[in-house]
């Protein structure tokens, strides 16, 4: 296995640009949503699933197949569990239902 120089250079390009894009995007995530953000990025980093599938499905040796099998299970747990839990959390974040309450409080305050 020898990764080509071309790929390494392209990979560095992609890594640097994705890093900057990530920085600028994630910087805008409010603190309110930091826990769901962690859960989401966890699910996203379970993209190792792609590598795990190749190692398992490629059937190189019995040894790598076993490692791949465990790796697919572990990353699949994160994909499924990660997306489900992020969604479950986000469902809880609700805006105020009735906007009349703060007005009532203000009226009280000014009186």
């Amino acid at each position, binding site marked *: 296995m*020898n990764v080509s120089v071309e*790929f390494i250079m392209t990979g560095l390009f992609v890594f640097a640009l994705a890093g900057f894009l990530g920085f600028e995007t994630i910087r805008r995530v409010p603190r309110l949503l930091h826990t769901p953000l*962690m859960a989401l990025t966890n*699910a996203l980093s379970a993209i190792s699933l792609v590598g795990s599938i190749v190692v398992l499905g490629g059937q190189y040796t019995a040894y790598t197949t076993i490692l791949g099998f465990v790796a697919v299970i572990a990353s699949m747990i994160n*994909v499924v569990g990660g997306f489900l839990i992020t969604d479950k959390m986000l469902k809880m974040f609700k805006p105020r239902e009735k906007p009349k309450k703060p007005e009532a409080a203000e009226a009280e305050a000014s009186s």
Partner: protein
Amino acid sequence: MTELLPMATSFFPDPSTDTGLYILISLLYLAGAIGFVLSLKWMSDAKTARKGIFAGEIGFVLAIIGTLLLPVITTTGYIYIAVAMLIGAAIGVPLGLLVPMTAMPQRIALSHAFGALAAGLVGIAKFYDATPDINWFVMAVLGIEITLGALVFTGSLMAAGKLQEVKWLAQRPIVFPLQKTLNFAVLGLAVLMVIILAVDPSQVWAIPVIIVAGLAFGVLLIIPIGGADMPTVIALLNSYAGIAAALLGFVLENNLLIVAGALDGMSGLILSIIMCRAMNRSFRNVLFGAFGATEAEWGEQEVGSIRSASFDEAGEILKNSRLVVVVPGYGMAVAQAQHKVRELADTLEKEGVEVKYAIHPVAGRMPGHMNVLLAEANVPYEQLIDMEEINPEFPQVDVVLVLGANDVVNPAARHDQKSPIYGMPILDVDKAATVMVVKRSMRPGFAGVENELFFNEKTLMVFGDAKDVMGELITEISGNRDSINV
């Protein structure tokens, strides 16, 4: 050192003979990457965040389809893949749906462990598959990747164990002589092995050494960590797990892995930096695992007298306020008092009192911990106010209700240079007219620091379990004895 060979043995189909499939898979991966970026972009607003999950899921499905189309996968391989994916999904569904919100910090830590495990195992499999035909660059990347995978795996398991308060794991930070020396020695051993392998990738024996050193370093990293450092550590492990995935992308010649890994790594990095700032720690200090250093023999300072209030006094004061700010801390999570807090807020609002919540960035055990708990209790998110935004408001606040928070409201952080928490940004609750502190006892907070807020003349202590106290206050305010529910 072997030279970088321009020859690639990629998993990808050969672009010159199998052009159509090559383009299809590449485009599927590209679409997957776009889905991931969009999912993070939509995460910047609570209104669009759920749409973001959907984008991420679509991205994932496309990535999996693209991977399954790779020609290297054999027919029996598909069967194994299907079985493994089903097992993973069967474990993932309960972990996603059944874990209660109060267990969220350990749940997040556990998922870092799974992610690191997968990345580490794939790296190890790649090594044994390819050795000794690996050039020095790829070997170095692979070596670092395996080290990171191993250390995040044990580190996250340890963190999850501490957060779950597993019996045989010491909750208190453990500090021993030469701890840092030992940590660096173990890490140095792993680095040395990576260098040996980069020079000569046929030294197969070095891989188990790397794995063991990585696993050991993960354990050593968490041993000196106490609860208050957990948010930073979890964010840092998040970052490491992402970097491991990105490194794997270099080894597997897969841009999608690089993109997703970089995004995750960056997210963890940003969160770590925010946590560090919120605790006034240098990022370098945290990066190398020098946590728990403030845990020291910090002396006793002058202790004044405290004033405590009975439930009916406290209820009366709350009832007659205009603006009440609740400051939640880990104590609220432990007592699971968030629902009762919301009930109290409802009761107060019925009396015409405005209620807000002041959220310190490191309150709790993970970034955003208090927000999730209060959201679970149906507190509208407009009422959850960040530290910087609420601090200028405190002089107009009638009553601050401190619930299980301690160090994040200690005014010593502003003026007492001897205090271990000096310089840490805090919620300026002492500027409010009255501070009410709900506490089980007078035990000091995590940093072992006596909180001078408790001895402030504006402060009223209300002793008791947070949940019970909330119940009592609701009863006092609504004047309805039947609603006692503790």
